């Protein structure tokens, strides 16, 4: 027992450091090689340049795939957030039969292998005779974004004291006015946070987009296509760096907003303690 504990306490920090390095070093390499002169991603570095970034706007396919990603991301995040609001409100406000089963099913896409989801969706869509397009990609992305939206929204809605809405009605406000002046401002951070998280997920998602997009690729699908050409690699690295930055920023903002919403709800509930 003691030996195990000593081994653990000696080696656990080492393991942790190695793990983090393994996880993040490759990601750090991306921005480094993206500003390297040489087209071959290799040490030693040959010099600083921004030419790979400068070249990006002159690639029409890249621009159109970025535009596709934007459309898919916006649609998927808006729809999954609206559906998420309904689900989160039902889960936090009401107690109903089959509640646990329902929340379990909503969360399931989180753990289903994405490739299985992709293949099954493809089969169903083909059976139904729905042609592949950005629309089918949006459908797939809504499916995988909903669990994230619901999780973020539940943490924003939890602790939302029902009597706040009653107090608003008591002070003469209509149902719509109450929603606009009380409910919305209180859950707005969670809603924005849900939009950002689902947009980020949709932006990075590859497997579903690969299976379900027709002739209009999203950014990750475009990047994958470019990897076949060695000469294009630096541009891909530059593009990847930009995507990474965008994702990181959006997720950070989302987390800050989520925490702010949760803190607010907690303060409100605090009086009972």
């Amino acid at each position, binding site marked *: 027992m003691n030996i195990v504990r000593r081994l653990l306490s000696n080696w656990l920090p080492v393991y942790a450091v190695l793990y983090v390095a393994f996880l993040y070093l490759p990601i750090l390499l991306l921005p480094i090689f993206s500003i390297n002169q040489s087209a071959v991603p290799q040490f030693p570095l040959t010099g600083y340049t921004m030419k790979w970034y400068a070249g990006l706007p002159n690639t029409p396919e890249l621009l159109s795939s970025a535009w596709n990603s934007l459309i898919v991301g916006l649609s998927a995040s808006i729809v999954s957030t609206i559906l998420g609001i309904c689900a989160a409100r039902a889960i936090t406000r009401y107690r109903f039969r089959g509640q646990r089963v329902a929340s379990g099913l909503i969360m399931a896409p989180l753990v289903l292998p994405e490739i299985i989801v992709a293949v099954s969706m493809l089969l169903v869509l083909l059976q139904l005779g729905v042609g592949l397009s950005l629309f089918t990609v949006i459908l797939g992305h809504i499916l995988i974004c909903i669990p994230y939206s619901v999780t973020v929204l539940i943490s924003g809605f939890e602790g939302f004291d029902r009597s706040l809405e*009653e*107090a*608003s*009605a008591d002070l003469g*406000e209509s149902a719509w006015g109450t929603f606009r002046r009380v409910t919305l401002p*209180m859950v707005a951070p969670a809603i924005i946070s849900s939009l950002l998280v689902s947009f980020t997920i949709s932006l990075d998602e590859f497997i579903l987009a690969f299976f379900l997009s027709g002739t209009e690729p999203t950014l990750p699908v475009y990047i994958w296509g470019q990897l076949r050409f060695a000469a294009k690699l630096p541009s891909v690295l530059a593009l990847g760096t930009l995507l990474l930055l965008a994702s990181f920023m959006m997720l950070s903002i989302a987390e800050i907003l989520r925490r702010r919403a949760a803190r*607010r*709800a907690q303060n409100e509930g605090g*009086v009972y303690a």
Partner: protein
Amino acid sequence: MPETPMIKIDHVTRAYGAFKALDDASLTIQKGEFFSLLGPSGCGKTTLLRMIGGFDNPTSGTIYLDGQAMNGIPANRRPTNMVFQSYAIFPHLNVAQNVAYGLKRLRLDAVEEKRRVEEALGQVSMAHLGKRGATELSGGQRQRVALARALVMRPKVLLLDEPLSALDKKLREQMQVELRKLQQAVGITFILVTHDQYEALAMSDRIAVMFSGNIAQVATPKDIYQRPVNRQVADFVGGMNFVAAEIVGEDSGTITVETTSFGRVKTEKPVQFVTKGKAATLGIRPERLRVLWDDATDKYEIAGKVVDRHYFGEITHLIVEVPGMEQPLSVSETNNFGADDIPVGAPIRLAYDPDALVALAD
């Protein structure tokens, strides 16, 4: 005070399935009255208050507000305002914005709105805290903001659901006094829900005592305390000694009973008194029994032995066994004369006023 009804509860029932949270309750509350709904937890106080406020609807019966039937009129169109048990302060607004919330819909000009907000904050001694964020307030301050937010609407009736229960004892007693003063200053009808008998006694013009969905008695605090209609009310509002008695005479207004310890007593007959054979119960409050010191005597006295003693600072509770009585008497005596020094086991004589004995329905 001229008696003009402000609220009339007319045979109101609220059922949840087979369970009746409120069972055929009828009640009239006068304009400008400080009225309390008193009863143990779960007796239906909140249910009734929420139906007056428009957050819930009677299963049957009608609630009239200032002569107008309120059936189907939602909370936002009733001339009532509520101070919620949780206070329900809007956390994303500051104190002044919370108070101004309901005024926004009235579209007052900015100067008038500001004046009314300041007036309301002044009434609850929060004038200097308008800019304070809602999440930076103490329990007592939240309570004041909730009060100001409701008062600023100048409602016909202010509803308060256990507004003081979240405060500590000292602050609670201070707020009882302030709330009562405030009600007298603004002259609005207040309906207070509470399970605290002392709170109800201290603040109200009249009290309705409720048990499991029924209104047991509606009366002034003094009558509730001195003339409870039945054992349940007597027991809930303060301590009470119960004495078994036998009915020996009865006319329309009074009954005469015979007891082993208190002799023959003639007392006023309570409203809901129903005789069941010859048995009856008399009640006497612990503080209406007085210790007779040394060789003092009284026209009405009773002798016994001290079997227990509880010290409460300004008073002492003596538990006194009396020959011929099943239950020992509880006596509450001030400590001015040394009641806290009477040894357990000592013989004791008690004086009482026969008017303090009340006949109780079971």
